[in-house]
């Protein structure tokens, strides 16, 4: 009896340790936030930036994370977002000019962006899952192609006819609070839905199994091809939501909007705890990763650091976080 109690206590302790090891990004975020608020002058004033950018870039990071969990990568997510942003402006202007209704134009703009994302994701998935091209190569090539289309339409700023209408989603201050925007609420809702879907649904479980061991998944009767293909479509749709948020935030589309997203999204995912090798991570990890990156970025801009230091510190932090991740990872789960 006594041995059983001791064994239970040890198990519970192991569970707690495991919980900490799996969620060390929470600790990192708390430490960085504490340092930011206590030490960095002006961080509080700019905190709304952290939330606005988290809402804006969060969806694309989440999309990439789902692809990464299958053990693949999507380096075209940035320009899928850019292309969806351009499409949303084209759709908005077409409907607005035809009907004069900003509401109808806004709805069609969002739909246009989402459909564009689904199409680009479908194309990526086709080459990776169906044809079997390396995800790295296929999505680099796709990135160039999408970049070309975006550049064609939006070399300089490409504005909707009613910029105020399109800004409603990302610039409306709910309750007068600068950090609380409809885009943030939408993103948080997406995180909740994706989190539950991946944990509760059979397909969500399949994603983890494919990422953990594609061969075993195949033997277990899971269609690896279809699973991977669907994740690319989801990634495309989530990238498109990011693209629309970027347009909504800026009030225009411009080709640079997808420019820096490829590396940023990977950094957010990795810092949050998504494993490059696949099979591990949740939507909450992505949310934490985006928050950590944005807090760090906001800290550095609140300090008015020179760009050379910003690049140096960002790179160094990524390495430090990866080391922490490595040291605190459970070998059995890796």
């Amino acid at each position, binding site marked *: 009896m006594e041995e059983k109690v001791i064994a239970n206590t040890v198990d519970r302790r192991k569970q707690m340790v495991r919980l900490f090891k799996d969620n060390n990004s929470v600790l990192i975020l708390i430490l960085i936030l504490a*340092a930011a608020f206590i030490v960095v002058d002006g961080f509080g004033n700019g905190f709304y930036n952290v939330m606005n950018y988290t809402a804006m870039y969060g969806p694309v990071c989440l999309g990439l994370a789902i692809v990464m969990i299958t053990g693949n990568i999507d380096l075209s997510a940035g320009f899928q977002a850019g292309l969806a942003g351009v499409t949303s402006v084209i759709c908005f202007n077409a409907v607005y000019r035809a009907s004069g209704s900003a509401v109808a134009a806004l709805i069609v703009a969002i739909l246009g962006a989402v459909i564009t994302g689904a199409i680009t994701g479908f194309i990526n998935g086709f080459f990776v899952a169906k044809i079997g091209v390396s995800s790295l190569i296929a999505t680099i090539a796709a990135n160039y192609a999408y970049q070309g289309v975006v550049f064609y339409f939006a070399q300089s700023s490409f504005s909707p006819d009613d910029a105020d209408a399109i800004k409603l989603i990302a610039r409306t201050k709910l309750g007068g609070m600068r950090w609380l925007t409809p885009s943030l609420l939408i993103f948080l809702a997406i995180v909740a839905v994706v989190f539950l879907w991946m944990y509760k649904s059979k397909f969500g479980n399949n994603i983890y199994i494919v990422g953990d061991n594609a061969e075993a998944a195949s033997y277990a009767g899971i269609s690896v091809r279809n699973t991977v293909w669907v994740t690319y479509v989801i990634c495309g749709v989530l990238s498109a939501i990011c693209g629309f948020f970027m347009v909504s935030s800026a009030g225009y589309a411009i080709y640079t909007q997808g420019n820096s997203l490829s590396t940023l999204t990977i950094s957010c995912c990795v810092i949050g705890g998504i494993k490059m090798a696949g099979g591990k991570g949740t939507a909450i990890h992505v949310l934490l990763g985006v928050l950590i990156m944005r807090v760090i970025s906001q800290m550095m801009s609140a300090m008015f650091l020179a760009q050379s230091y910003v690049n140096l510190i960002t790179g160094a932090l990524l390495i*430090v976080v990866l080391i922490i991740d490595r040291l605190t990872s459970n070998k059995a789960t890796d």
Partner: protein
Amino acid sequence: MKKLTALLLALVMVFALASCGSSSAPAANGDAAPTASAPADAAPADAAPAASGKTISTDEGCNIDLTGIDLTGTTVGYVTITSTAPWGGRVGTELERMATEAGATVKSLDANTVADDVANYCRQMIDAGVDALAVFGGDPTAMVDIAKECKDAGIPLFLTALDVAEEGREYATACIGPDQEQMCYDIGQYVIEQNGADAGANVVQISGVPFLMDYQLREAGFARAMADTNYNLYEPDYAFSSRTDAKTFMEQHIQADGANINLVMGYDDDLTLGAVAAIQEANLGDKIKVYSLTGQNDAIQAVKDGQLQLTVMNRADDIAAETVKAIYEVVTTGTTNYYHYTPLTFIDASNVDEWIGKGEIG
């Protein structure tokens, strides 16, 4: 042990960042930076100009006189689209240096070529309560909102080598730089004078960053000059800040249509010199004439060597100095002209000897 090491690393990371914060942006003269925002039409309480002003050093060739300028007690925010492009980077470093020597505290942020971040960083400067905000690069449309927000916050906005879209001009304080459109119109007139209006020349255009208004205006000015000729202007190639890319574009033109190219119009010396290198490697230097602007030292040398017909010196330090001067005017008098055109110098074979080594960068 592993957990201890991990915790240690996390702490090192946090405190390294924190220490960066405590050492950044010191007041140049040792004074604490003011935190309250100053209205556009009123001088900061402690910014009364000294009779003699500060000593601000300028390079040989700088055309702007900064005697009597004193920005003590003024916090100047500076946001740039990039600090790594040679000419644009020099505008920033000179502006920061001159403003600091004038006694100002300078806070700067680099958007690292992301146009949206220019707007975001400008908002951050507004939140920080700077007394004046200078912006280099960025999108003219995006600057409309920023100009309005600056006006609302009572912060004068100075646009360096950039103009805001028309609907934002009533909110911005000043636009500083050469008249880009007129400059390239004049270069076009020079080209016509040299070659004749009916030469039927095929012209390759090497440009920089397509969304930056200075490049847009330069292309528009050259196109206006060429409107009444029978010249054939190829669509501009955008090499952004890369001389290597400019060279590649020129090599592609030479391979595709080398026999028919007569002229190259480059909208930035650093890029134009990439095209010059491609032309020299293809031994087409005698056939293709190259025209450019910005007045870099290596471009002036290329004029001397006969590889370049013309460069127009558009000095980055003139723009920086004129911006500092405009800020001083607003801080002390509450007003300044909207357009501050900086001087230009046409350098060709006739006067190149006077200018060797007197350009900027390169």
